[in-house]
């Protein structure tokens, strides 16, 4: 069984994607043996009515999720009263975590508002997912060039926030491996494999970072789901390692967050 920690609902702004309708997305996930998928919303990138984005996300997960989709709400800390969005994500939508897109929302990781957001999320025991990038900078629309998030300040921010549980999504190879390792070494930080590249990339990656910090993520439906699946196969991992990445590490993370009950989401 698989826990996919990186899927998106709704529409990618620049093209229609296969399976960007929730029924098709869930059907594909079930076909590929996914038992749980942590879902954000592409609407969270550019929409300013983030509260509305999160209501729709929660509703789609409830209506179409078939006990697979788990919503992770978008938070934009540059919007007025963003703290209320955090509260609603947890108390009303029963989300186990939130998803951040700093490069689309116009703040850097040394911005005090980011530290404030992490503090609130930690107090509420929410998992924080931070998307490093969404698209290769070489293929972006000329009117929408968004470089990857600069993660250099992140290690210090993480060290100053004990108790934080942070997952980095879409870990592009445009950022040096040493920078990721520095962040992973700073606290309870996880990465997923959707953008890991190179032959047998997962096997080579877990020689440099603790296995317990590596999660399965497909970045479906922006990426073909089979990409992440075949990366696992290409790496020739033993059964224990596969189990850890496919599901056990994510289960432990969401369990440790202490705020997620599947029944709450399904009601």
């Amino acid at each position, binding site marked *: 069984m698989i826990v996919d920690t990186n899927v998106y609902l709704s529409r990618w702004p620049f093209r229609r994607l*296969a399976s960007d309708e929730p029924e098709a997305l869930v059907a594909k996930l079930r076909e590929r043996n996914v038992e749980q998928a942590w879902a954000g919303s592409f609407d969270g990138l550019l929409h300013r009515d983030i509260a509305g984005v999160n209501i729709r996300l929660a509703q789609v997960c409830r209506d179409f999720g078939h006990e697979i989709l788990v919503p992770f709400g978008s938070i934009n800390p540059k919007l007025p009263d963003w703290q209320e969005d955090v509260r609603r994500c947890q108390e009303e939508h029963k989300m186990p975590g939130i998803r951040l897109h700093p490069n689309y929302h116009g703040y850097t990781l040394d911005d005090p508002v980011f530290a404030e957001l992490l503090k609130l999320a930690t107090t509420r025991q929410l998992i924080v997912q931070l998307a490093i990038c969404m698209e290769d900078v070489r293929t972006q629309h000329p009117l929408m060039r968004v470089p990857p998030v600069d993660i250099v300040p992140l290690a210090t921010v993480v060290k100053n926030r004990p108790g934080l549980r942070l997952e980095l999504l879409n870990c592009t190879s445009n950022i040096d491996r040493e920078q990721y390792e520095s962040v992973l070494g700073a606290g309870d930080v996880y990465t997923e494999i959707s953008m*890991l590249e190179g*032959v047998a990339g997962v096997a080579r990656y877990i020689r440099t970072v603790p296995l317990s910090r590596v999660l399965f993520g497909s970045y479906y439906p922006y990426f073909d789901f089979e990409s992440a699946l075949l990366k696992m196969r290409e790496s020739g991992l033993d059964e224990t390692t596969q189990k850890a990445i496919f599901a056990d590490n994510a289960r432990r993370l969401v369990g440790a967050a202490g705020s997620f009950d599947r029944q709450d989401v399904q009601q």
Partner: protein
Amino acid sequence: MALVQAKATEATGAADSGEILRIWDQHSHLAAIPGDTPEERMAFLVKCMDRVGVERLILSQGYSDDQHPNTSEQFRLENDRVMRAVRAFPDRAYGSVYMSPALLDFSMQELKRCVLDGPMVMIGEIEADARCNVPAMDPIAEWAVANNVIILQHEWINARGNQPGESTPFDVVELAQRHPKLQIVCAHTGGNWELGIRAIRATKNVYCGLAGSDPTSGYVEMAVRELGAERVIYGSDVGGRSFASQVAKVVGANISEAEKRLILGGNLRRLLTPVLQKKGYKV
């Protein structure tokens, strides 16, 4: 080999059809692969090929630290490395000759040494400081036509701007229109594939290579819709990429199993058949 075919069938979800897939990778390198020698690097690749069902690959460029070598000695060294790797695993790889139009005389000699008199079966990936529409590419294209050899040409349409001398699909089209009998593959179809596919659409002797970009949903579907599956060719661009992410573009695409088989190997085998037969290799 049966194991490889079984893995490929499993990977592509084609088990129900009972068909055996034969994945041939048109675009691979020895760079960024563990190992101190060409043979060691190729052995590592073969292990990974077996896991995802890749039967054979076309190897080029060796593993130079320099992305654009500019001396004949360096090109020769890289071609020698490729031939060593192929010699060690003749059932799993063919070689493709690395060259530059900036070194035309040397390149013509290298064609003779590596293809005519040697074991190589293809030209490229040509990735040089000169764009492929330069006049110096004409003798290379004429040689390719005369000897029934296809060319793999690096190109991109980089949203941040191409490197100096880096080709675009438009340059490939220009060369292909000057040589209508040439069979030439765009290595990356622009990277920006929505643009690249349109750029090559009307020029039927240009093929869409899938290698070396993110496995974004919709790429293969658009290529098949606009070009026909016969003009779409799978390649990975390992070691910078994985087999996995690039095979996934085809496996995950909403196209027929027959179209997948063409893209994953059928088209390449068809294009290589004349040179393979000439060399007495089993097709």
